[in-house]
C-alpha cells in the first residue's frame, strides 16, 4: 500500500508540474495571440495610412490639385515684364 501511495504522490507531483507548465504555456499563447492581433491591426493601419498619404500626395494627385487651383508650370508662365 505504501508503494501505491508513494507512486501516487510522485504521479500527483508530476501532474502538478505538468499542469503548471501547461498553464504557463497557455498564458504565453494568449499573450502571443494578443500581440499578433495588435501587429495585424497596426499593419492594416500602416497600409491604410500609406495609401491615404499617396492618395493625397502622389504626383498625379498634386497635379490635379495644382490645376484645380490655377497653378501653371513655370515654363508656361508669363515671363515678359511690362515697364511701369
Amino acid at each position, binding site marked *: 500500500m505504501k*508503494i*501505491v501511495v508513494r*507512486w501516487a504522490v510522485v*504521479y500527483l507531483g*508530476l501532474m502538478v508540474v*505538468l499542469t503548471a*507548465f*501547461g498553464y504557463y*504555456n497557455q498564458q*504565453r*499563447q494568449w*499573450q*502571443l495571440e494578443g500581440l499578433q492581433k495588435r*501587429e*495585424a491591426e497596426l*499593419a*492594416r493601419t*500602416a*497600409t491604410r495610412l*500609406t*495609401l491615404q*498619404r*499617396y*492618395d493625397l500626395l*502622389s*504626383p*498625379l*494627385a*498634386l*497635379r*490635379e490639385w495644382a*490645376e484645380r487651383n490655377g497653378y501653371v*508650370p*513655370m*515654363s*508656361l508662365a508669363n*515671363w*515678359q515684364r511690362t515697364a511701369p
Partner: protein
Amino acid sequence: MAQRETKTHPQAQVLQASLHRSWVVFIAMSMFVVGMGYGLYTLYNNAPALLSRASVAYLDIPPMRGAIRASDGTPLALSTTDEVRVHPMGLSASQLLGFGERANGSGLAGLERDLEETLKAGGSVRLTLDANIQALAERALWRAMEGSKSEWGVALVMEAKTGRLLAVANGPRFDPTAARGDISKDISWRNHAFTQAIEPGSTQKSLTAAILMEAGVVKIESRVEAPMFRVIAGRTINDIVRHPPNLTLAEVLKYSSNVGITRLAERVPNDTIYEFFRKLHFTDPKPMPAVSVGAPLVRPVKRWGPLETANAAFGQGFLVTPLHMLAAYNALANDGVYQQPVLLEGQVSKAERVFRPEVAQSVRRALTDGVAERAKVPGYLVGGKTGTAQVVVNGRYSSEVFAASFAGFIPSDKPRVTVLVTLFHPKGGGLNIHGSMVSAPVFREVAAGLFAQWGLPPVVQKEEKKDKKQ
C-alpha cells in the same frame, strides 16, 4: 485438504499477491509514462516560445511578394501582411505594372508577369520611371484622349543619353483594384506602348531622312521635285499639306511630303534601308532586356518592290511598337547613337552608332525649324515630327481609323529626353485626327512640365535672334 494447505503456504500467498500487484503497478506505470510523454510532447510542440524560432516554425511559409518601385523609391505596387497587392500610386503606370491573381498576387500581365520569378521570391525591383514625369505624361495623355475620344493612347519619355525610360503612360485609365470585366473587350489593362505593333506613319520620315543622309545620297538642303501626288506600282501616293513643287529635304520633313520622301528614298537600294531598319532594331523582337515587347512585323527585304520601298519611306507597310519607334528616334536625339531602352535600374543599356553626329544634328535642326505649331513652347527649343498613319481594318486601309503620333526631342539642341505620343483612332472630326492636332499638344504639355521640373527659364532673346537671322 493437506494438498490445499500446502498450496496456500503463507510465503506462496505473499509471492502470488506480489505477482498480481506487479501487473497492476506495471500497467499503471505504463499508462503514467505514456500519459506524461504525450503531455510533454504536446507542450513542447505548442510552446509559444518555440513559434518565434523561425527556422523551426516558418520554414514552409513563402516570402511576401516583392515590391515594384519607381527610381526614387516611390512604391508602385507592394504587398503587405494584410493585402495581397496594393498600388499606392493608384492609376499611375497601372498598365505597365499589370496585375496578378487576386488570391496570391501571382503575375498575370505586365511587369507582375514578366518579373514573376524575382517578385515571387520576395525580391523587389526598382524601375527607371520618374514618378513625376510619369504623372505629367499621364495627365497630358488622358486629357488629350478625352478631348479626341481616342480608342487608346501612349506617351513615352526616354532619357536620351542612357536609354532609361522615364515615363510609360497608357490610356484609357486602368484601375488594377477594380473588378475585371471581359479583357477581350475592355482594353484599358493593356500596355499598348510595349505590346501593340502599329504602322508608325510619317514620324518615320525623319529616320528615312537620316538614313539617306548617312548613306551619302542626300544632304538636308538637297532638292527634289515633289508634286502633290505620284503613282507607284498602280497606287496613288498623295501629299496632304499644300507645298511648293520643289522642296529641300528639310522642307520635305516640314510639309511631311510623301511624294518628296519616296522620290529621295529611291536613291538608295532596298538593302540599305533594311540594314538601317535592323540597326534601329525595327526587326528585333526583344529590344529591351527582361520585359516582354510585341514583335515587330517587317517584310523580308527580298519581297520589297517599289511600293514597299515607298511605304517604308513614310512609315506604312511595316509594324513596330511605340517603344521601338521611341528608341529609334532616340538615336537622333543621342547624336546618332542607338541606346537600348532599359526599364529596370541596374541594367546597362547597350549603345550602337547608327548615324554620324552631324546627320542626327541636321535632322534635329530641320525638325526644330518645322515643328508643328501646337508642339511649340514659347522661349524653348523643341523639335519633332508629326505622323498620321493609316490603319488596316478588315484587310484594307480605313478612311476613318488613324494612328496620330508625335515624336520629338526636349530640348532639341541638346536633347535630354525623347518623347513619343500616339493616339489611336481619334474621333475629333475634321482635322482633329492628325498628329499635329491631337498628339502635338500632349508633347507640348510634357515639354512645358519638364522645363518647369528642370527649373529652366525660357530664353526669349535666343529666339528673337534666331528670328532675325531667318
